[in-house]
């Protein structure tokens, strides 16, 4: 029987969490491989070529960051990191090392599935991204990349060049958390002391222009202290 399911690798040492993640993913139509060790995970990465990796940062045999670094040398497979709440700094460094997303423990099945779907879809997108004439839509937000125009409903939104660049950049990675430094490097090219503040001010203007109220942001989620994430269409 041909198997065209997505293949997911779960690297997690806690049996209960691994079993619950395994069950959830399998019942939702993914083929799931699990391992408790990073070393073995790296071997499976080369031998099984999974479409996505779910990685716990605190594994006994190897630092999770080391895993990401090694994995990134040979493949661009999306990596979703599982982390505890108190490890903000770890989250940021994992993202900057090339992890695609993180999920804070404890998490529900809905959250896990949404992130997995988003990461898989992004991976597909990026392979043939920014085709000419392409248009991004999310709810009633519309971005026309060719004409650099943004609309909410029927109303055209007037953004400055920087604001547009930020919004377009976020929209290319829907569902993925982009760290402050990642966005800054993409927009301004280099990082200096005041640039996070510059980004935050621009984001505040974007929110205002898109008509977002606190608690009712329909497009962009603030990941406090980490970065921003554009919502995925299916969330």
């Amino acid at each position, binding site marked *: 029987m041909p198997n065209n399911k997505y293949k997911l690798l779960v690297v997690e040492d806690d049996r209960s969490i691994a079993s619950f993640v395994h069950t959830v993913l399998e019942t939702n139509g993914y083929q799931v491989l699990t391992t408790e060790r990073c070393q073995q995970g790296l071997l499976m990465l080369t031998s099984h070529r999974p479409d996505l990796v779910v990685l716990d940062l605190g594994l006994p045999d190897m630092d999770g960051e080391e895993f990401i670094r090694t994995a990134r040398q040979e493949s661009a497979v999306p990596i979703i990191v599982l982390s505890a*709440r*108190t490890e*903000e700094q770890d989250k940021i460094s994992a993202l900057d090392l090339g992890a695609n997303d993180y999920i804070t423990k*404890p998490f529900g099945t809905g959250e896990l599935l949404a992130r997995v779907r988003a990461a898989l879809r992004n991976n597909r997108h990026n392979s043939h991204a920014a085709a000419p004439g392409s248009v991004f839509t999310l709810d009633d937000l519309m971005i026309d990349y060719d004409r650099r125009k943004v609309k909410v409903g029927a109303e055209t939104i007037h953004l400055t060049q920087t604001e547009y660049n930020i919004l377009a950049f976020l929209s290319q990675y829907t569902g993925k958390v982009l760290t402050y430094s990642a966005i800054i490097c993409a927009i301004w090219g280099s990082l200096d002391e*005041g640039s*996070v*503040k*510059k980004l*935050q*001010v621009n*984001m*505040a203007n974007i*929110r205002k222009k898109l008509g977002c*109220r*606190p*608690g*009712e*942001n329909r497009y962009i*989620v*603030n*990941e*406090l*202290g980490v970065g921003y994430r554009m919502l995925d269409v299916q969330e």
Partner: protein
Amino acid sequence: MSKTNRLLADSGFTCLVLLSAFGLNLLLQNQFQTPAMTPMIFVLGVFLVSWRTQGYLWGIAASLISVIAVNWAFTYPYWAFDLISPECISSAVAMLIVAILTGGLTTRLKQQEKLKADAEKERMRGNLLRAVSHDLRTPLTAIYGACSAIVENYDGLSRETQLKLLKDVQSDAQWLNRMVENLLSVTRVDADTVRLSKNSTVLEELIDSLLLKFHKHYPDQKVHVEIPEEFVCIPMDAMLIEQVLMNLLENAIFHAHGMKNLWLRVTVRDRKAVFSVEDDGCGIPPERIDHLFTGLLGSEAPTDTGRSNMGIGLSVCSTIIKAHNGQIKAFNRPKGGAAFSFALEMEDRKHAEQ
């Protein structure tokens, strides 16, 4: 205080006291033409030094210097040394005795104070542990019970019953998680070695992130939000402040009986952002208002309120705000209902405008 700082402060203090004693004596000698006050003033100086500094060293040093100073400047022959006179030796002995006794007394006093503070801390910790164990056991019992009910009667229970039991397990687990987050915050703030990770945080983003989480847990509770239009940046440990606000909002849900409206307000007053959470529920009983934040209402009073989480939640709030150099206040609104408020320093404006 670090060791070098302590050393600097002590030596500085000693010099200051001795110099002022010397100056005062010169002044008095000129004024009254009699050396009668001189030893008294130096003894007072030695006493002050032994009292305010750490250990014996500074007191003894001060007494020796004083003896030399008295001998040199204030006894015949003036401005010359005469160290072997019996007068000089006896005054030196007296000064040394004062220094050693005072030093010994104050050291013992300080030790006692430290012991007392340690004991108090230990007592608080004990109370916290007791309250926590109690509060953790309740939902754990419920989770364990529900799960065993399902495992043991899997075929006997209807689908609806199973689903209901599982939903209870889910909400109990969420409650446990929030509890653990509170505890983690306390240990993070409590440990003297760990400092807050203060980052400049955009107020609007904080409130947005908070409301998102709040609505996830309580989708039916509407919150009236009033925040300033301008771009406000506040240096804070965002995760902890978010938790304070979350605890306050949750507190209203659990305890403000008859509440119809819930407000979250932030106003800017003299470079300070004043946060307040207000409700129009039943208010806080006046006899409890004074020790609301001292925590652990449950530790002395019987904890029959079930899983209130309030004692811990509010003392966590107070600890976190204290760590941000602020103070949290609770009061009853004149129109009815309870209000909690605290203020945080804002960032310099010139930073905020690019």
